[in-house]
């Protein structure tokens, strides 16, 4: 009897220890994208398509909860298909029909580690940066790998392009420019810290802007990799900067928002602070910029840095909001809903998903 009790105690301890530390899936904040009809958000082990008209669920992928973990932003490819990457046990990227959620490819693009960054589509090729430090180029129609290139440490930042080069920031503090024609690194530059937000490419493709944990935003010549300027931030810059004309908006984890001149990097907003730390990228609105905070609020500022309006959403917001039509979509964590649609004119919540 005592042996049984002892064995039970040991088994219980083992299970308790497992529950304490083991995680079969990767946990992070949701990924979010939208087209004219649906919002697509990757949350936990499934990707949901939610109708923008009424906030009801259109489809869910995969059908059953598994050890997959979808945390990267889904991407709507130029051909209208949806690309989703998983960071759980299968580490796959697959193409879905946005209308039905059915798979398009015969087999997904599989790597040996997590897909945390969302893929980029240029022409008929998708470029995807993996946690294993490699950049994958694959055929958009089939998902077949064309080539891979090992860059460095984990790649958590989504690739971007100016049409000639692919830009990928890495946790190893480097921003890499890869030439798809030669399948080699054209240049790399030290950002002074890890970078998670995608590098932002200027409208003319001549400059790349990247924020980093080096507490700065850098402007880099896209052709040569020469640093044009560095703008200091108070703390880590997580999200990708957003460009609007000759202004670059960025925010940091200390909760400060910066309005930087694209030519010189000087901050025009000396002390704009919403109500909490910021990991999401600024979202450009027709009349200004929207900032989402960890405190669960969104703040809209005009171009002079004056607050236009704010709204408390609830939970903690880490995911960059998405604007579509007259809606702003917010995907908070630790809220009693997973997705909220805010009317950009009335500044009120239109619907929440799941519906109560």
């Amino acid at each position: 009897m005592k042996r049984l009790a002892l064995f039970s105690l040991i088994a219980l301890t083992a299970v308790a220890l497992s529950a304490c530390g083991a995680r079969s899936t990767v946990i992070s904040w949701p990924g979010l994208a939208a087209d004219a009809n649906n919002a697509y958000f990757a949350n936990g082990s499934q990707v949901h398509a939610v109708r923008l008209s009424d906030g009801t669920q259109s489809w869910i992928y995969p059908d059953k909860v598994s050890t997959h973990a979808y945390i990267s932003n889904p991407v709507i490819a130029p051909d209208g298909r949806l690309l989703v990457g998983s960071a759980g046990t299968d580490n796959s990227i697959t193409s879905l029909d946005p209308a039905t959620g059915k798979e398009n490819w015969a087999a997904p693009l599989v790597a040996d580690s997590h897909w945390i960054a969302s893929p980029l589509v240029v022409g008929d090729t998708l470029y995807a940066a993996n946690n294993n430090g490699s950049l994958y180029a694959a055929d958009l129609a089939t998902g077949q790998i064309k080539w891979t290139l090992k860059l460095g440490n984990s790649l958590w930042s989504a690739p971007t392009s100016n049409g000639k080069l692919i830009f990928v920031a890495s946790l190893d503090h480097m921003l890499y420019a890869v030439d798809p024609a030669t399948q080699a690194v054209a240049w790399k530059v030290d950002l002074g810290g890890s970078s998670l937000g995608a590098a932002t490419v200027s409208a003319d493709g001549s400059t790349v802007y990247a924020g980093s944990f080096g507490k700065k935003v850098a402007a880099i010549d896209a052709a040569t990799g020469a640093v044009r300027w560095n703008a200091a931030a108070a703390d880590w810059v997580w999200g990708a900067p957003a460009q609007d004309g000759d202004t670059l908006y960025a925010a940091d984890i200390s909760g400060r928002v910066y309005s930087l001149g694209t030519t010189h990097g000087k901050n025009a907003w000396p002390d704009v602070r919403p109500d909490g730390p910021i990991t999401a990228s600024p979202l450009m609105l027709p009349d200004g910029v929207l900032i989402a905070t960890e405190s669960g609020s969104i703040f809209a500022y005009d171009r002079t840095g004056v607050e236009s309006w704010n709204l408390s959403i609830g939970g903690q917001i880490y995911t960059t909001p998405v604007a579509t039509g007259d809606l702003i979509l917010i995907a908070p964590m630790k809220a009693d809903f997973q997705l909220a649609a805010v009317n950009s004119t009335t500044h009120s919540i239109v619907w929440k998903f799941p519906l109560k």
Partner: protein
Amino acid sequence: MTNMKQARNVDPAALQGMTSGMFKFVGVGVLLALIVWRWNDFIAIFVNIMLWTYHGLSHIPFIGASFGLAIILFTILTRVVTWPLASQQMKSTQAMQEMQNDKEWQDIQKKYAKDREKLAQEQMRIYKERGISPFSSCLPMLIQLPLWFAIIQALYRMLPTSPLSLLQLARSIYTWPEKFFPGLSATSLIPINSHFLWMDLSRPEYTLILGFSIPLLVILVGVTSYFQMKLTTPVSTNPNDQSAQMSRTMSVTMPLMYIFMASSFTSGFALYLLTSNLLYIAQYAMMGKVNWSNLLPGGSQKTPPIRKR
């Protein structure tokens, strides 16, 4: 009325020993409550010590930033810090085992086999005479359990697998040391190189041998756990010794538990368990208490020398 009478019969000295043990228990209870209350801060202590070790290693030529070595050094540090506790536990366990093998105690057990109350009184008397505290053998275990929980979580926190876990790590890193050592800033420390030898310490380990994926580290953890239990379990000659029966059960179940944990968690934690097992055996060996004959077939039947006090 009967209970009151029995209470008056209890030896005051034995009662004093019990009270002292109870105070220790209450003290440990308060300490554990504090740890639970400030759990995140408790984990942060381990995160930062390991990060400092990791950073220190990065300055050593030919070694560089090695998280695996940082785990090994951290385990050694943990063993050194908890040495007095472990030592106390070992001595207490040994003393209790010696008592089980002692003829006087065996005679008492026979004499009062049907009088459990008297047997308990005699047991307390012998405890007092020999300076044995029954609490001393389980208190260190109580303290080590939250240590394990914290180390598992610290290892997970230090090898983030998602932006959210990276944010948690960033917030765990102390900012004050970077004023003196800029290399200790979170900016400089991240990312942490999780590769050590053939392993990625942020994942469970599998080694490809002859086309088969073998969890080599898990097997090593299991083998060293078995050796640890065998080598450090004193031999009992007392047929009525229930603790010896429990020890035999433990020598099978504990390695199984270690294997279960090592395979459930990251290889970083398995490396911690492996190092910890080897150090435990080494500590026992340094105290001259390793029972090497236990590894031999039938070795556990041999009677070890009993030290008389």
